[in-house]
């Protein structure tokens, strides 16, 4: 019986008087992958931030791991892995130092080994000792994904994970996401258009602040297979 990891109830968010999210109601269960499709400025990133407790809803609630996102406690935060448009990486530290730092921050053991392992899983092994400020956008994105997934979270919030990635990288990341979902992680991905990970996904579309479920087969004008 799949457990509910994320549930939003009439979640509304306004910036000033401008509505960004309106009465959003979604559910994400563990071991499931959800995809949220929307254009720029449609509120995808805002929704993810609210789920992570980094932003507060104007009204309504987001329940994550059974807690209200407004009061997400330490235990809950530990189980979240997040990717945003900002990389959350320190430009003057090397890739390995960055990941080792986050590993230590999250209380994981063998930080250096763990960092190395994840750096290699996104094929950045050759640049492990280079400073992040020298990385290309795609490399930074891959490293940031590694950072998010390294802590083996139970909830993955990935904002446009495939943006700025070349097809090889796309395949790698797709693999990592599939693996995480297979071990029981709940994942919420956002994207500009439909994508196919080779696994069953709960698809939603966000427009004008409202989130509507999408049927899988019916509307897929731009579909890209992500190397299943």
């Amino acid at each position, binding site marked *: 019986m799949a457990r509910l990891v994320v549930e939003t109830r009439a979640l509304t968010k*306004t910036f000033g*008087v401008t509505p960004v999210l309106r009465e959003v109601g979604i559910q994400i269960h563990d071991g499931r992958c959800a995809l949220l499709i929307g254009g720029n400025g449609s509120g995808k990133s805002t929704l993810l931030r609210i789920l992570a407790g980094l932003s507060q809803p104007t009204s309504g609630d987001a329940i994550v791991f059974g807690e209200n996102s407004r009061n997400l406690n330490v235990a809950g935060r530990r189980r979240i892995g997040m990717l945003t448009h900002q990389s959350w990486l320190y430009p003057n530290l090397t890739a390995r130092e960055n990941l080792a730092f986050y590993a230590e921050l999250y209380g994981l053991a063998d930080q250096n080994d763990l960092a190395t392992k994840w750096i290699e899983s996104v094929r950045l092994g050759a640049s492990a000792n280079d400073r992040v400020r020298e990385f290309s956008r795609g490399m930074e994105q891959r490293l940031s994904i590694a950072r998010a997934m390294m802590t083996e979270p139970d909830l993955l919030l990935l904002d446009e994970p495939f943006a700025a990635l070349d097809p090889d990288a796309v395949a790698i990341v797709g693999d990592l996401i599939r693996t995480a979902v297979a071990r029981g992680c709940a994942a919420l991905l956002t994207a500009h258009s439909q994508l196919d990970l080779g696994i069953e996904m709960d698809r939603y579309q966000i427009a004008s*602040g409202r989130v509507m479920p999408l049927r899988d087969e019916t509307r897929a004008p731009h579909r890209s297979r992500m190397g299943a």
Partner: protein
Amino acid sequence: MKIETYPPTPSPEVEGEKNRNMKNKATAGLGWSTLISMLVSLFMVFEWVPTEEDQGIVQRIFYFHVPCAWVAFAAFGIVAIAGVFYLWLKDQIWDDLGYAAAEIGMVFCTLVLITGSIWAKPIWGTWWTWDSRLTTTFILWLLYGGYLMLRAMADDTPEVARFGAVIGIVAALDVPVVILSVRLWRTIHPAVLVTRAGEHGLEDPRMVITLLVSLAAFTVLFGWLLMLRFQQLRTRSRLFTIRREVALIEAAAQDY
């Protein structure tokens, strides 16, 4: 297992007639009380109370100077307490109260410094002196200024009320340390002063009564001004909530 949820967006308060009337009555009541108590106080200060021997007529400013100081410090306390409630209860009404108190308090703090200056000139021959009370009040004035500058410069960030609350609390708790350090500073190097008719210098009981009446009058004045400003800020907050509600409804109308 009960999951803690928050109440839905409060619908814009359609103020009942009754509520509005009560508020207007309270404000009016404060206004009239201010007028009467001020008139009484003015009479007492200028006509009734005897002139102090050492300092002459100028000493009467003391009956305005001290109450202003009391209000300035009390208002600051209100800013801090409102800040605590805002951080705890997250209700905008506490921020409106704190901000109003800061604005009004700043006015009275400025008056303390001005009246202090006017008093200092004839008595000590100088417009300003770094005695412990004036120095502390000046620092309070700077703290007020910082709070108001923050509100002005952060008015476009959604967290402005939260920042204000934190600064209000921090500043209010700093004040005792300020008082302590300034007092110590001044006992080591006392400024050349004549003892002011403050603590023990009120020989005539009429002076004490006049001071108390003046304190009461200024407190009521402060209450009235605070109420007026607070109501303004409340209206602004309510207007914001209404506009937000309208925007949400308009967006919903577009769905169809």
